[in-house]
């Protein structure tokens, strides 16, 4: 019972509390570069999830055999293997998507989400939990970049998943397809996600703030005090 619960919380952790894109700000490169369309976000998320599950599983199996000093090269080899599999599969099954994602598929090898999970989770936990963690992180990443892709596609191209949405409402603003628009949408979504995710925690932090308020006048880190020179 307890183990089951832990598995579930490991899975959910990747989607909300430690969402790689919105909370940890990992994997920014694909999150900004390929999210001009919702479909690309979904495809990128799925590809990364596949590599993440595969590498987390294998790494958690070999974690006790691989010497600590050479663990990074070993992980890279494992991750590169799965990335190559994904790239070959995409080239055959979805050549169009493969062309759109371009260089960002091979770049999954150095995706920091996958590295972070290998280093922080798979190295310390068993294969079942590692798979659940990979699924949660992959789902969190996929959801996040699909949302970014959806917002950018609707505002910037007037379509969603390739279907026209805003044809008669307003003409789309190309700005949101461009990198600057990507950064802006990203910032807004991170702020929104953190506000929603932090709402529960606010009840607990009040106590802490009260305790701090006493020392504020003398506190050198108080707002505005840091810049005076």
């Amino acid at each position, binding site marked *: 019972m307890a183990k089951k619960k832990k598995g579930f919380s490991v899975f959910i952790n990747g989607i909300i509390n430690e969402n790689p894109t919105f909370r940890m700000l990992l994997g920014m490169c694909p999150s900004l570069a390929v999210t001009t369309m919702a479909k690309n976000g979904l495809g990128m998320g799925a590809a990364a999830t596949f590599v993440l599950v595969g590498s987390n599983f294998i790494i958690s199996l070999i974690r006790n055999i691989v010497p600590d000093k050479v663990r990074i090269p070993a992980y890279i080899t494992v991750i590169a293997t799965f990335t190559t599999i994904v790239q070959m599969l995409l080239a055959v099954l979805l050549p169009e998507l493969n062309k759109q994602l371009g260089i960002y598929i091979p770049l999954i090898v150095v995706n920091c989400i996958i590295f972070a999970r290998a280093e922080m989770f798979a190295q310390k936990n068993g294969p079942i939990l590692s798979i659940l963690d990979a699924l949660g992180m992959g789902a969190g990443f996929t959801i996040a970049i699909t949302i970014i892709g959806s917002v950018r596609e609707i505002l910037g191209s007037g379509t969603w998943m390739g279907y026209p949405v805003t044809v008669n409402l*307003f*003409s*789309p*603003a*190309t*700005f*949101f397809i*461009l990198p*600057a628009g990507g950064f*802006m949408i990203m910032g807004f979504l991170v702020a929104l996600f953190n506000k929603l995710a932090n709402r529960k925690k606010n009840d607990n932090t009040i106590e802490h703030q009260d305790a701090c308020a006493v020392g504020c006048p003398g506190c050198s880190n108080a707002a505005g005090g840091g810049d005076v020179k």
Partner: protein
Amino acid sequence: MDKRLNVSSSPHIRHGATTQKIMLNVIIALLPATLAGIYFFGARAALLIFVTVLASVGFEYLSRLVLKRNNTIGDLSAVVTGLLLALNLPPTLPIWMAVVGAFFAIVIVKQLFGGLGYNFVNPALAARAFLLVSFGSDMSKWTEPINRITALAAEAVSGTTSGATSGATVDVSTYATPLSILKDGGEPPSLLDMFLGQTGGSVGEVCALAIIIGGLYLIIKGVISWHIPVIYTGTVALMAWVLAPEGMFTGYALYHVLAGGLLLGAFFMATDYTTSPMTKKGTVIYALGCGLLTIVFRLYTGMPEGVSYAILLMNVATPLIDRLTRPRRFGGATHV
């Protein structure tokens, strides 16, 4: 604030300037260019200006309300931003796009970064750049001015009606701006036409005379110093003369000064207090940078105009310039 006698630590003698008074002066200085724009482009331009200013003030009020900050629409800075934005738009731009531009300027560039004095670039210019990359075709649809002063004068002299003033409705056809004519190698309009505003262009940028009157008012009132406008336009004129495509030292210096948004940008937007350097030395570097970038954009890129991007880039560089030109403390060590 109205009391002249302040019981407080020094300084005891205070200047009467407030944000509100400065902004009011800027609005007064912009009036000639605004009226010229309305005269040349008709009621459509007046509507565009009115809606953009109204939307800017409205967004300022709403965003302060939502962000739970004290209300600042009384300082008139939102009016200035809205007016400057409208003067930088083509007269036929759909109204809703102008409202989106006002939202971008006020909410995203100004209030989300902390309000007046905290914006990292000029809000009106950032909104113009946003609209330009978003709605490229609508943002480069220029129209011919309705009223032509030089044609009217010619009629008065010759006593005939040539029909130059009649029949021109605002959205008749697209019309080239002086800079796009120059880029495409056509015959440019005369300097007098450009000085008076008889060319295509944004609502407020066409009439050089009106902008110069407003700019001189600001300099005389002490709201801006002469450094940025003079060095900026001087750099553009010099570099346009030197780096002419037909050969060195043969360029249209005066032409590049009068065409496009250079004067409007140099007098009213590059001089924004928040986004220009604080020291004199820094101001000179900043104005030189604006001028060089403008001429590089105009002569060596696909875009006909480069004033807004040049000023935006130098806005971003302003904190670095300020750090570079920070005055040494009196009696302090020689090293920085």
